[in-house]
């Protein structure tokens, strides 16, 4: 009566599942397919920007919500003699360069940054891996630094150059001007009321609260305003984007 026996159906189902996996792995090898999947990033970014006010704030927590231990991730101590020398005199000789498409390139010491208006925020740090830690960050709003340096209106991205190396590749990240001008985007030099520990990015790290952890560049040395990310290192806008194909937009 029935053409399909139960055994045939179960067998076909198992065979289908068995084909699915190698099939997906093969699809992943295809650059065209990867580019198709990457549409998800653009659609998500567009949709999130659509439903979100440019200045919508990330949740700020009470002191009681602070993680007992703020997990350090990625580089814990940058290698090399240059960083060791900076660390030896407690970053007194460290300077943040701000240049690229700006009217007045700057070189700022920690004291100069600290003399600018300060913002503190108790926010959640979300790693792309899935964990979260809450800490109280204190620092200089990035917008104030950008106003001081006079970013040209043809600049579309800020590139954050870092002191830490992965093999021979320096860590770097980039954000667009919407996130750069966001009120919670700060250059943080303190965590939980103390100067930023080395393992969390001393002397200065970026906080860009509406994106995942890998965007929050640590060990900042230089901020460069650019019109395009194409010519910067691997061209995808960040170390993990270049090396491991992570998405540039990390709002989800």
């Amino acid at each position, binding site marked *: 009566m029935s053409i399909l026996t139960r055994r045939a159906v179960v067998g076909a189902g198992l065979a289908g599942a068995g084909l699915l996996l190698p099939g997906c792995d093969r699809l992943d090898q295809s650059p065209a397919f990867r580019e*198709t999947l990457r549409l998800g990033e653009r659609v998500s970014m567009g949709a999130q920007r659509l*439903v979100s006010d440019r200045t919508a704030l990330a*949740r700020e927590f009470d002191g009681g919500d602070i*993680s007992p231990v703020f*997990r350090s991730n990625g580089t814990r101590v940058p290698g090399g003699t240059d960083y060791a020398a900076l660390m030896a005199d407690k970053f007194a000789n460290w300077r943040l360069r701000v240049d690229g498409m700006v009217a007045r390139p700057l070189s700022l010491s920690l004291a100069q940054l600290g003399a600018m208006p300060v913002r503190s925020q108790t926010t959640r740090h979300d790693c792309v891996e899935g964990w979260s830690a809450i800490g109280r960050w204190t620092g200089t709003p990035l917008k104030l630094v950008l106003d001081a340096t006079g970013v040209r209106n043809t600049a579309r991205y800020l590139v954050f150059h870092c002191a830490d190396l992965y093999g021979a590749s320096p860590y770097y990240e980039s954000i667009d001007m919407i996130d750069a001008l966001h009120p919670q985007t700060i250059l943080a030099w303190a965590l939980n009321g103390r100067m930023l520990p080395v393992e969390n990015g001393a002397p200065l790290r970026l906080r860009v609260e509406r994106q995942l952890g890998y965007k929050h560049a640590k060990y900042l040395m230089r901020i460069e305003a650019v019109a395009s990310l194409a010519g910067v290192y691997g061209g995808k806008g960040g170390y993990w984007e270049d090396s491991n194909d992570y998405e540039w937009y990390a709002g989800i």
Partner: protein
Amino acid sequence: MTDERPLVKRHAWPVRVWHWWNAVVVIVMLMSGLMIFNAHGRLYWGQYGANTDPAWLEIGSTADSGYLKVGAVQVPTTGVLGYWQDSTGAVQRRAFPGWATIPSGYSLSAARRWHLFFAWLLVVPGVLFWLWSFVRGHVRQLTPTRNELAPRHVLADIRNHARLRFPAGQAALKYNILQKLSYFGVIFVLLPGLVLTGLAMSPAMDAAWPWLLDVFGGRQSARSLHFIAMALLAAFIVVHLLMVVLAGPYNEIRSMVTGWFRLPPERADAKAEEVA
């Protein structure tokens, strides 16, 4: 020999199209989601949670074994979870094994690309199906009535299912209470719950829609609920496939492909009618 049992129209086209679409999309979401979990095999309750914070669920490994820990209970899972061999025979210590994940070899970035692309293929048709369900009354067919929810009725239906006495005759055209509870639960509770807990894990969405954090009790609670809903959905799929096979796969699959279902005749003893 011709079959004289009547062929009846059982499933409307939106049900059939959405069903097969989801058969692919949901499996990809499940398997890529397991790979994303592999990046951090621990679950927490509350706003935050990382390695030094207490986890309520953990899939991990010792020197030579794998384990699943839920609360204080630890179950050995060597070979399947936490400690397993990949296709080359090498020992891997990720939570879920390669045969259950997309991609099969560890890659968080690739899994995220699959998951966050297919999420759109789940959400957009899902919203359309929801609208259709409410406009065309499909949701009413799946909503349990007060009588059906009486414990006696539910128990009787469980007994009938356990004895593999599936509804026959006209009763087979309506959803029974266990079907209603599971389909209603999947379509109107689990799937939207998965989408919303997924959004609650997005730092940008938490800024746009802060109520997500209040509804689910924090990003790490949302991640835990996302995982639990995934496990329930996976359990539903297993039982659903089992039921299709037991109830007659040819007739069941045909009705979901073409819409036409051959109505099983009323049973002589009509015991299944107890539940009607």
